[in-house]
């Protein structure tokens, strides 16, 4: 396929030999495994450059905007959920919950397109894409944060409401502790475990969501590289990209587990 339609049998054979595709499948796999654990993901079928040279900058770009989105998600999602929980069924709660429903139900890439249309094309406030100016990161990060922030807001609201129904909250109220102190010292700390779990799980899923958003905003990250590598059948890049994201998810899950220990003194690692 790489050689083109009019390739001779010899050209094809030589390309196969160069890429190691003339070996039996199980040998190819063993070679792949042993190279991978040594940090060598092979060379791209297309560019003939080392896969690491492709992936390292792309991974950096993805981390940059996922990090920005993660910050937004926490900064917007948790306060929105707390506000909702302070006055259930108020108009504020309804606005937050409707936004949550839309965030969960709208195709994330389409939200990106709508934001791009409004803020880049209509209002002209922000660039529609582009990696090299700091404004370029705003729209992709906001898009990603909207969807995952919605999930965080919902779990924050649910777990706050649950904690607020406990007896010790009533005791605190009876002792005359102010509303604000009850919320932040008594309720939020106890409600934080499910919130942290959700954030940890969502960051993994966010790395998947970046694939769509990077395509919308032409962000030179891992997701967009992965999609074009699949369409071009550049297997080494696909393998390395999938592997890298999977490892990142594992590390994040481990970090989430470690954070439990700080939040809940009852959790001990043995």
């Amino acid at each position, binding site marked *: 396929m790489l050689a083109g339609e009019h390739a001779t049998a010899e050209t094809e054979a030589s390309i196969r030999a160069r890429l190691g595709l003339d070996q039996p499948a199980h040998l190819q796999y063993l070679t792949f495994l042993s190279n991978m654990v040594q940090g060598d993901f092979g060379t791209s079928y297309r560019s003939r450059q080392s896969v690491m040279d492709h992936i390292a900058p792309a991974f950096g770009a993805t981390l940059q905007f996922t990090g920005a989105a993660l910050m937004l998600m926490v900064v917007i999602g948790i306060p929105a959920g707390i506000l909702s929980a302070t006055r259930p069924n108020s108009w504020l709660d309804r606005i937050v919950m409707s936004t949550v429903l839309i965030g969960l139900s709208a195709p994330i890439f389409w939200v990106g397109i709508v934001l791009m249309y409004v803020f880049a094309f209509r209002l002209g406030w922000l660039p529609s894409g582009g990696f090299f100016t700091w404004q370029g990161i705003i729209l992709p990060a906001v898009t990603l944060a909207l969807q995952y922030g919605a999930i965080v807001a919902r779990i924050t609201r649910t777990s706050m409401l649950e904690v607020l129904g406990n007896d010790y909250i009533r005791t605190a109220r009876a002792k005359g502790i102010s509303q604000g102190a009850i919320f932040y010292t008594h309720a939020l700390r106890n409600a934080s475990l499910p919130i942290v779990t959700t954030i940890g799980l969502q960051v993994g899923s966010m790395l*998947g969501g970046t694939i769509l958003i990077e395509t919308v905003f032409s962000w030179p990250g891992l997701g967009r590289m992965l999609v074009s590598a*699949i369409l071009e059948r550049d297997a080494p890049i696909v393998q390395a990209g999938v592997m890298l994201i999977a490892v990142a998810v594992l590390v994040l899950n481990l970090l989430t587990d470690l954070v439990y220990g700080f939040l809940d003194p009852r959790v001990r690692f043995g």
Partner: protein
Amino acid sequence: MATNETGMRTRAESIVRFRRRLFANPLVLWSFLVLLGFLFIAAFAPYITPSDPLRGNLALRFAPPSWELPLGADHQGRDMVSRLIAGSRVALLVGAVAVGIGLVVGGLLGIVAGYFGGLLDVVLMRTMDIILAFPWLLLVIAVVSILGPSLTNAMLAIGITFIPQYARLLRSVVLTTREQDFVQAARALGAGTPRILAQHIAPFTVAQTIVLTTISLGKAILAEAGLSFLGLGVQPPTPSWGTMIAVGQDYLMTQPYLSIVPGLTVMIVVIALNLFGDGLRDALDPKRSP
């Protein structure tokens, strides 16, 4: 409370009560109507499209919305209304088949793991954990990259991501039901394993399975749109809402409705599925029974 002589509610009575509880929230009623409309349009798509969704008229290229073309025409002069209608069929097909795969495969695995337990349970459920640990889109993309992009492979790939959720749900229901007295009684009476599973345990899984299926259908429709948006799902010229959004993005500056309208359609259907699923869960929850 309406009861008959035995003090038990009749079947008809409990259906009426269930319906009243389900539609007590007007949003649930509205989402039910939206879903009925969606099902109708998807089922009869070939008969109700005003014009051919595949063949365009280049003279109508980028025709703005008008009486004849309420949503205008796309870059090949194809009627957007007809393409949206045809796209509903693809969305429903992918959603139903993908969720079906998850339900059948995941459900069977969950029931087997829960009923037999032991090493089999450990192996099956740890495998499910591994699948769940992957971001779903990455998993779908990995499967598509091996099988190649097409409608069938999209359904298969999306279906795989639903297997662990059904396996977990059904396993937990089976685990709680297995030790109940009536199951022990059935076993004492000599009922075989298949009979116990089908007649005594399966009925308890129905309610929660219906709720999970409604919400999964929404996720599957979003997944199909996303995959097709990336060019890894339904291939042109077959109309898919995701592909329409992708094509529309190229003309966002001048014809924004070309991508905004298909996205709105996806959102409305998925909102309806989510609201209806929430409504079903509340109505089926025995703890909230009045």
